[in-house]
């Protein structure tokens, strides 16, 4: 079946099987390999993308379900490598990663989290960040620098 959606601002159409996962569509059909598959059981969050502005696990959705939707992957955050998103800069400056495998999902979860808290006029505390990261697993860092990065990224997003 043919599906059409907007990915990182561009309209894309491809033929896919009905059982194609959104993450496989993004990685294998569109060759956007920034979105990762970590666990296959919906727990790790390495595959998080934004669907119509909301963080979702692309390994737990069919590509065909996203027909007509607007999808943002980690590749869609920066306009160029010299013009990173404030959250990407924060992860870089705060050593928010070691191996980097979980990072795309962490950053997509983080930008969604900050956007939601800012829209609701709520302050994002360290406790909030740790709670919000429930669906993202990192096996390297022990989370401390990720939490620091998100806190710093939130300030940078406010001032940006």
């Amino acid at each position, binding site marked *: *079946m043919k599906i059409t959606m907007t990915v990182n601002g561009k309209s894309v159409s491809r033929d896919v*099987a*009905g*059982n194609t*996962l959104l993450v496989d569509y993004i990685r294998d059909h569109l060759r956007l390999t920034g979105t990762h598959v970590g666990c*296959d*059981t*919906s*727990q790790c*969050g390495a595959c*998080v993308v934004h*669907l119509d502005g*909301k*963080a*979702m*696990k692309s*390994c*737990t*959705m*069919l590509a*065909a*379900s996203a*027909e007509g939707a607007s999808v943002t992957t980690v590749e869609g955050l920066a306009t160029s490598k010299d013009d990173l998103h404030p959250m990407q800069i924060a992860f870089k400056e705060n050593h928010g990663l070691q191996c980097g495998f979980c990072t795309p999902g962490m950053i997509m*979860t983080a930008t*969604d*989290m900050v956007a939601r808290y800012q829209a*609701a006029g709520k302050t994002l505390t360290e406790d909030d960040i740790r709670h*919000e990261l*429930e*669906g*993202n697993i990192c096996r390297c860092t022990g989370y401390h620098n990720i939490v620091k990065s998100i806190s710093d990224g939130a300030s940078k997003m406010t001032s940006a």
Partner: protein
Amino acid sequence: MYETNFHKVATAQEAAALLNTSEDGKILAGGQTLIPTMKQRLANPTDVIDLSGAADLSGITIAGDQITIGAMTPHAEVAGHAGLAALCPSICKLAANIGDPAVRHRGTIGGSLANNDPAADYPAAALALNARIHTTSREIAADDFFEGMFTTALEEDEIITAVSFTAPAKGGYGKFPNPASRYAMAGVFVAKSAEGSVRVAVTGASEDGVYRHDALEAALSTDWSASAVDGVEISSDGLLSDLHGNAEYRANLIKVMAKRALG
């Protein structure tokens, strides 16, 4: 994942018609259970009928003390709805603690109720709030809807369209989440209606799925307080024993969660 025929529909009636004509069709709501199940090849539907395009199935409407939540309303919307929080904050709190933020953006109340996972949160709310489950063909009282683990009164080609209930005078939900899955090891929803009748529903703990707890209801009917729970004997008969905890442990959790629900 096995091959399947994908259909996206605009209305629940269209989905019901497709269910009728497909060999072994499955409704896809938020898919936060169905997709992982299909990935593990534990489900092999010939047809997947996606309701995400059915706009009239999503949304929360409030008329006086009457609350109606569309079947496709995601958990995040229930958690963050200001009008609902003013009338029934306990269901907002419940929704805010299902899974993780990404799951809450996709998972739906209708999907949760139709699946009737024995450790899901929404069945406890629906049963304690004496909710009415609206479907493509009728309206079912929560007392008649849940028929045991992963089993409901829904017919093969019947689809939930909404759930409605009267705002309780008082309500609360206590949940002990499994640290890995976030599903309830025991979850207790307590509700007291404006007329004073008390209903207590327990999820996560029983071999037969969600159930009403008669002894807790009796105790809270005379004294709506956490201390009233102290005197209640919680039987471990029929409770789950698995690698996460045995029946006696879950019986104790029910007591503790009931007190937290009231606290």
